[in-house]
């Protein structure tokens, strides 16, 4: 059974009217000042002596339309690489984080190996790893032909990002209250079961916002595989730019990257806010 809320008193109604007026006024002030600022910036840029030239070399609609098919094709390559790299990072980083949680002297070599790995690849610039993997692995001659550049690029991304992401997972595992481990072990669960059923699921919930941020960062860095010759959106834009002597294709590719990132960024913000709300409500997770 629900009871109807009591009708607000005249005093409360008056307060609400006042607050509404205040809110309306603030919104109006903010809107007017934003528009005024945008107009000033726009006029300043448009009236610079070089604007006409910049506009035709960076924002030419005709060039953009011509470049579109190739750049869009390239973006699909980026997306494919992103998906495979993300899956690879997830697997390798959980493996690394798990190795680092092993206790006891028996596992020292594995722990040390995982620690050395993360130190190495967190320190090394991605572009150098790309060159080493992209030109070093084919040099070993495992396969008769050179593996596709996109594949080599994916491997390099996985190597570097796993080092970061495994640290995120490790921090998440360590943030789970130690008595959760005790409770799990006292039920008779093994170390591996405790990790898989109790610690990792809670750790993943805690670090999901951080992981999503890393995914956004990786999505941008996927563009770097173009240095290996993979025809992704950046490389496609480069080809189109060379053909038209116009930089518009780069702007086009850049905007496409932003469009690709936006849903993920919004999702991250939404999820982070949701977690914060839950925590403020006193939820344990």
């Amino acid at each position, binding site marked *: 059974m629900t009871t109807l809320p009591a009708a607000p008193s005249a005093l409360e109604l008056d307060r609400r009217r006042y607050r509404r007026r205040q809110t309306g006024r603030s919104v109006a002030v903010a809107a007017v000042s934003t528009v005024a600022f945008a107009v000033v910036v726009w006029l300043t840029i448009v009236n610079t002596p070089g604007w006409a030239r910049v506009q035709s070399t960076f924002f030419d609609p005709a060039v953009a339309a011509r470049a579109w098919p190739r750049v869009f094709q390239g973006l699909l390559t980026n997306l494919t690489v992103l998906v495979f790299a993300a899956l690879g990072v997830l697997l390798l980083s959980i493996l690394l984080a798990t190795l680092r949680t092993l206790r006891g002297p028996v596992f020292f070599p594995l722990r040390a190996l995982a620690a050395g790995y993360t130190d190495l690849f967190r320190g090394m610039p991605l572009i150098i790893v790309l060159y080493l993997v992209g030109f070093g692995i084919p040099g070993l001659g495992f396969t008769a032909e050179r593996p596709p550049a996109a594949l080599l690029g994916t491997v390099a991304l996985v190597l570097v990002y796993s080092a970061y992401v495994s640290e995120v997972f490790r921090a998440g595992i360590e943030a789970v*209250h130690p*008595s*959760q481990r*005790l*409770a*799990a*072990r*006292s*039920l*008779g*669960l*093994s170390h591996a*079961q405790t990790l898989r*059923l*109790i610690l990792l*699921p*809670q750790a993943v*919930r805690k670090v999901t916002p951080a992981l999503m941020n890393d995914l956004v960062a990786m999505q941008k860095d996927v563009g770097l595989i173009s240095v290996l010759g993979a025809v992704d959106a950046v490389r496609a834009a480069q080809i189109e730019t060379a053909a038209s002597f116009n930089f518009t294709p780069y702007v086009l590719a850049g905007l496409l990257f932003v469009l690709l990132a936006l849903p993920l960024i919004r999702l991250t913000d939404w999820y982070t806010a949701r977690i914060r709300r839950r925590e403020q409500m*006193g*939820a*344990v*997770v």
Partner: protein
Amino acid sequence: MSDPLLRLTGIRKSFGTAEVLRGIDLDVAEGDVVALIGASGSGKSTLLRVINLLERVDDGQVLLRGEDISDPRVKPDAVRARIGVVFQHFNLFPHLSVLDNVTLASRHVLRRDRAESEARALELLGRIGLAEHARSYPDRLSGGQQQRVAIVRAIATDPDLLLLDEITSALDPELVGDVLALVRDLATAGTTIVMATHEMAFARDVADRVVFLDRGVIAEEGTPDEVFRRPREQRTREFLARFSEPLAGDPLPRQ
């Protein structure tokens, strides 16, 4: 004479230079309810963790049904599945529903199938009036309900022995009664229980034996009547004096 269910002989345990348990001998017969009392820091929790092999002893033996479970050749996971434990707090896994919490050990340690585990869990939850919360997550339950689920989870695998470590000391006073009532039911039904507690009235009422731990040794043990009414040791009297109120006819948990 048959072996006691649990036998501790000469248990010693140190953390660094601090000697926390200094030679504990204790027998617990099948169906016994033993209350461990003692000041904070006297070693009650450490002793319970030793029994459950969450701490390795420095010396002495832990025998469960005559088997030396402190032997390094014994698999600790298998032993722990035979001993149920409830701690003071953070018992339940917040990412699992009440039902999944209760069935976890049954499914993943005893390898019973899901249907069988859930049927048993629902029956136990029903007995404590929480069956309709089976699909809820622990954060939807009150502290008292959470502790009762933790107890049910601990007994869902039909362990030989139940260890309770101050399971009501983190609860609001009005939530304590239901939890103690559940423990009393289990005790009446013949469950073997070793419990560390500050609820002196409850210990007096439910325990078959009371063990007073003082700085890592058993200073006194006996029936509740002996320990609470006619303590032989001066330090027992001093400790009990701090609980004057519960010993003078106090509100006991409802039956």
